[in-house]
């Protein structure tokens, strides 16, 4: 087991910068997700940690040891690839055994036929056989050991890839979107299994994904990446409730958070399309209000709130999504309970943002309640991670959306 320290890591491909000054502290035994849309550099960061890609600048420590000039095989890390990357010409057994064969047997002992007779090759081979069999049993793939990867389903291949990563008991697991090739049912199932696996192994997991649901459900902490930078590192709950920037708020949560223009009119009160809302902050530079669809209530026209016209209604079964347009300019979405009165398309209604649930942003998009500014991001990350340790009760009341 090992912690990972990423210090000022930079990476550019040719003249194109991909990662700018990444700083990240991953604790021993933590499950950290690198979340971001495609092209944000999350896979590159993972590959740098793995040693498959060389950083252009900065420092990487795994377990306190500097990793510069250390090859992937000597870093004590295993990786699960998005495509699984199983060896198609080898059986499941050989695939899983490969890391052990390469590590435990000498160069000559790996030779076919003759190798088996050299030194203690026989005992090592026996150990490998036992280890792979036990592992296969625990992953429930022991009946597939003689098959080739092409004869397996997606889920089974996934398990084999996991087995190959687990077999040599690495200090760090790196996973590059391992579930994205599975169907949604299998994905939900594997999500639970991965989380359980992490709990039982207690190993450090670094998990790359573009799927916020995966990141939110499995991780201890989520690092949200955008355009080669880490915007926020905090617990799933914190990143959802107290995003430090509008971009973070917009990325996390489906449907997307509503952003309404608003301005502070007096200390602690802001105005949003004529609706007065408390800000819990003395900040004067409020520019917009972020409010989750489930916290935006649709009311009859004459009640207090922002007047809007319904343009579409989606029935999700358990709830309805009401799409509306405020003042002919701002589109918003409200999630409504299916038992509530659902407005029809074209109806004139009023939206009331729920008190205490708004997130206020300044002109640059920073959260005014979250004291961090761009220069203080690092400090904030530490502070946030502390609060993550304290869990739910450590949160600020104002952040409880």
């Amino acid at each position, binding site marked *: 087991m090992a912690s990972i320290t990423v210090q000022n890591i930079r990476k550019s491909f040719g003249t194109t910068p991909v990662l700018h000054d990444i700083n990240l502290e991953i604790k021993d035994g933590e499950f950290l997700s690198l979340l971001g849309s495609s092209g944000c550099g999350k896979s590159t960061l993972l590959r740098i940690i793995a040693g498959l890609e060389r950083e252009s600048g900065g420092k990487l420590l795994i377990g306190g040891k500097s990793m510069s000039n250390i090859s992937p095989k000597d870093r004590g890390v295993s*990786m699960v690839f998005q495509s699984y990357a199983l*060896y198609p010409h080898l059986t499941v057994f050989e695939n899983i055994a490969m890391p052990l064969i390469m590590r435990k047997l000498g160069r000559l002992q790996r030779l076919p036929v003759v190798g088996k007779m050299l030194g203690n090759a026989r005992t090592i081979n026996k150990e490998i056989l036992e280890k792979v069999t036990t592992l296969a049993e625990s992953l429930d793939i022991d009946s597939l050991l003689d098959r080739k990867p092409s004869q397996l389903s997606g889920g089974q291949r996934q398990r084999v890839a996991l087995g*190959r990563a687990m077999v040599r008991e690495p200090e760090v697991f790196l996973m590059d979107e391992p579930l994205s090739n599975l169907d949604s049912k299998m994905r939900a199932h594997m999500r639970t299994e991965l989380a359980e696996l992490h709990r039982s192994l207690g190993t450090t997991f670094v998990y790359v994904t573009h799927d916020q649901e995966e990141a939110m459900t499995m991780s201890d902490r989520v690092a949200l990446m955008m355009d080669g930078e880490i915007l926020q590192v905090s617990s799933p709950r914190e990143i959802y409730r107290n995003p430090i920037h509008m971009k973070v708020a917009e990325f996390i949560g489906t449907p997307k958070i509503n952003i309404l223009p608003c301005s502070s009119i007096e200390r602690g009160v802001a105005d949003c399309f004529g609706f007065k809302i408390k800000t819990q902050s003395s900040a004067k530079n409020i520019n917009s209000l972020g409010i989750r669809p489930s916290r935006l209530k649709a009311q009859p026209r004459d009640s207090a709130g922002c007047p809007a016209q319904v343009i579409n209604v989606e029935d999700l079964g358990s709830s309805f999504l009401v799409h509306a347009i405020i003042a002919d300019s701002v589109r918003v979405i409200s999630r409504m309970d299916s038992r509530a009165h659902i407005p029809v398309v074209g109806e004139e209604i009023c939206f009331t943002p729920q008190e205490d649930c708004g997130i206020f942003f300044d002109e640059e998009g920073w959260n005014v309640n979250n004291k961090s500014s761009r220069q203080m991001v690092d400090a904030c990350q530490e502070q946030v991670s502390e609060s993550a340790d304290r869990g739910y009760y450590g949160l600020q009341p104002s952040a409880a959306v």
Partner: protein
Amino acid sequence: MKNISYAKIGGHILLIIGACFMLVPFIVMLSTALKSQANIFAGGFSVIPTEWAAVENFQEVYQKIPIIRFMINGGIVTTSIFLIQVVIAVPCAYALAKYKFAGKRFLFNCVLWCLLIPPQAVAIPIFLELYSVGMLNSYAALIVPWSISVLGIFIMRQFFLAIPDDIIDAGRMDGMGELSILMRVMVPMALPALTAFGILSFIAHWNDYFWPLICLQDVKYYTPPLGISYFNTSDAGVSYGPLMAAACIITIPLLAVFLTARDKFIQGVSIQAGVK
């Protein structure tokens, strides 16, 4: 529906004609190998000999020329050429397909240009080179000029390109060095391409008449095509019966090799099919 079936029938008729056209020389070869000299020179042509001389013809082959020796020579030469070609082409192809380095495009263009150079064009320079190092008239003279196969590099590179980088990275994570990746992952995965190249190489050098004719004097190094030309001499005339009988004999290894590797060969020629 009707149109399609007519087109299909037409296509098949064309294919059958093509196949017969390809087959005729073999039938003539086989039929001539069974005929006596008189039968061969008699007017008209019949597939079934009117005057049989199969035993005599084949006997003459064994008595007049060391055909077994020639076949062994052919075996030694083609196998060595293929092995050396693989040893050189596979790492070259791997580098061209998977590594980033300065001049990679240029080197690959060189490979493509070399594909365009006919071997006859460079025969004399190579002959002179071999002469100056005193390697003419030996197995080495037959093997060395062919040790670098640009076709092999090209075929293997195309196949390696289709192998996902993730598998190579997985190999690195699993503790393999570059050589292990090549031997344990790339080559086994590229077996169809390697077989296809092997067959092409084997056929080309087993059948080669031009180069052995230039670089050999000593009969003990003769390869099969050169060896059987004994029956086709300007002063003694052509003895067609034994010549064709010998031709039959030296065709057998070609057939055998092709038939055993047929499935892999077809997989390799339709290159992308190999990787999944």
